[in-house]
């Protein structure tokens, strides 16, 4: 267990942290895996880079605290100029780190996609879009069950947007065409479908289907008809073919259609 950053002593005392086991740094926060009141928890110290995004994420988790498959917030504590979130510890590994376990495991990948869809479907039906589904934002427990994290840039029809019409937050290698070539009106649950198909492809082959750089991926998306390499026995091929469309209307219109080509 590596500790990249130390938790300050006064924060440890304030939160009654008995031990810090692990820490890492994200774009917007420091995360500590610690023991508190005899229970393992995740302590997220938000760096105040994007207060609006932080507030949206906290609000989201509070609103959906009984929803399975997403982190549960135990407490939110203001500390100096920062905000500290204490979350239930998810005993698992980040998918970005354990992706090798899925290589060429079509059925295992299929099962993961089905499980993520089960978590996401109620949100999609409510008009909520994650907008940043990628291996880094999925924690997989030992029994293979996923937890979807980082709803900081989710799109909620009931909330005002934090993005302009000419930009869409995304991670280049795992984004849909309407995010890379910004088209805000096209962002929907079908954006998440596309991202999940990208994840499935990445897990299967260890590479992204349309390139690794912004230029490569943009060129593929601008060209229109998306072509990707696959092997003859790829059981995911139908699922990928159904989903990899630049035109949003061409992608499956609901989760059951989306999953119809998934091997399980």
């Amino acid at each position, binding site marked *: 267990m590596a500790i990249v950053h130390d938790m300050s002593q006064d924060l440890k005392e304030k939160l009654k942290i008995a031990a810090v086991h692990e820490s890492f740094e994200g774009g917007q926060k420091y995360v500590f895996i610690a023991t508190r009141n005899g229970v393992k928890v995740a302590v997220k110290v938000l760096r105040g880079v994007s207060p609006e995004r932080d507030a949206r994420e906290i609000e989201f988790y509070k609103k959906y605290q009984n929803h399975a498959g997403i982190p549960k917030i135990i407490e939110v504590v203001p500390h100096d100029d920062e905000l500290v979130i204490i979350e239930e510890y998810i005993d698992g590994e980040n998918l970005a780190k354990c992706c090798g376990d899925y290589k060429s495991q079509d059925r295992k990948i299929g099962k993961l996609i089905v499980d993520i869809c089960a978590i996401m479907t109620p949100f999609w039906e409510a008009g909520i879009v994650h907008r940043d589904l990628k291996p880094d934002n999925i924690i997989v427990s030992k029994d293979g069950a996923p937890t979807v994290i980082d709803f900081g840039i989710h799109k909620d029809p009931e909330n005002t947007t934090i993005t302009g019409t000419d930009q869409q937050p995304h991670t280049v290698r795992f984004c849909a065409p309407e995010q890379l070539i910004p088209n805000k009106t096209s962002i929907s649950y079908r954006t998440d479908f596309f991202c999940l198909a990208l994840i499935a492809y990445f897990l299967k082959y260890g590479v992204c289907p349309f390139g690794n750089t912004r230029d490569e991926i943009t060129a593929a998306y601008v060209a229109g008809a998306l072509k990707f390499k696959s092997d003859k026995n790829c059981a995911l091929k139908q699922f990928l073919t159904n989903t990899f469309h630049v035109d949003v209307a061409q992608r499956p*219109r609901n989760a059951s259609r989306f999953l119809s080509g998934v091997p399980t």
Partner: protein
Amino acid sequence: MKVFHQLGHNRKWAIDSYFENAVGDGFIFGAYNCTETDFVDKVAGKAKDDYLGVSMIDLQYYGSKRSDGGKLDTYEFHPTHMPQDGSTSVDGIGLIQKGVKFQRKLGLKSIIVPTMHYEACDLKKCNRLLSTINKEIPLKRGDEEKVYMTLCIPKDGIISREYVEELMVAATDMSIKFDGYYIACEPVVEYKKKVSIDYKYYENLLYVFQTLKGQGFETIYAYANWDALLFSALCDIDYITIGTYENLRNFSCDRFTETLPGGPSKGWYFSERLLNFVRAQELDILRHADCLEVIANSRNIFSDTILDKQYSWNTHKPDVHKNYLLAISRLLKNLAKEREATVRTKKLIGLVEGAREAYKTLESKHKVYLQEESSNYHLGAWLTFLKRHQVE
């Protein structure tokens, strides 16, 4: 694929052709030509039990603005009674619900949900209305009923890929509970032409059908002209309409009249071999050149009648229109016999190439050069479209 008669002026001819000549599989009545009370009694001499079971009704809510002279206002719930100031959205839903209720009360198994049309391609407004209707329309009654939502696509919209894509995203959203769509699209037709040669029109309308079918919806192609052959070859459309007068084959979003522009016409002869209408006056030239057989429809009693030398041509005679109804329904049904789109496409390409050959024969062998609408102006565009979509 089923062929339904789009009924309008002189609907008796279409109804007769169904009952007497086995042309078509059912009817789509239009509110412009039928009063609210017409459906309680006989229509064209047929008892309602004979025709209602195979009928749908297009209440033509889009046609509320300039449809003078029709019967739309005989429906107490028709939006033609509303002030045309654009403030229709709240009351409009109520009228749409009444329109659906009216159809259910008649016992129709297929319900066409009517919708208003907004000017200036206001797609956002249209999509909001689509979404609201989807939420507000009561669920269908049992598995026997099918509910089709009207998609009214204006000319400026169908030639814009962005417009069509946005419309399709809304129409295929996961929340949508309609069984299918009733697609009424304005064709992009040039002056002195009867069918479109606009490639974008063909591409985008095909995209509409293929997207909806691909997402599991049934499709009804309303106000279809004979270029429906192209779409039915490339996509498994569920219902294709056939109509008599031009206004039943060329849709306009904001008016629905039977007035034929351009003055009196002697009428037109539809030739299966040319895949085109030929102006009545030009038939005399063909007769004089003794080459009617190049264009004549076979096994078609109406064609036999109207190609007779003694036939007194008049566009308001039933045979002129019944010839078209029989010929186009045969063409459509023959294509639909093939389950695979690739086979249908190949078959239609053969027909288009045959039609081009027939035109060549008329010119090279018989020195007859058909002009304007009667010429082969559309066949090149059709062949290009089909071949570019042909999957080898």
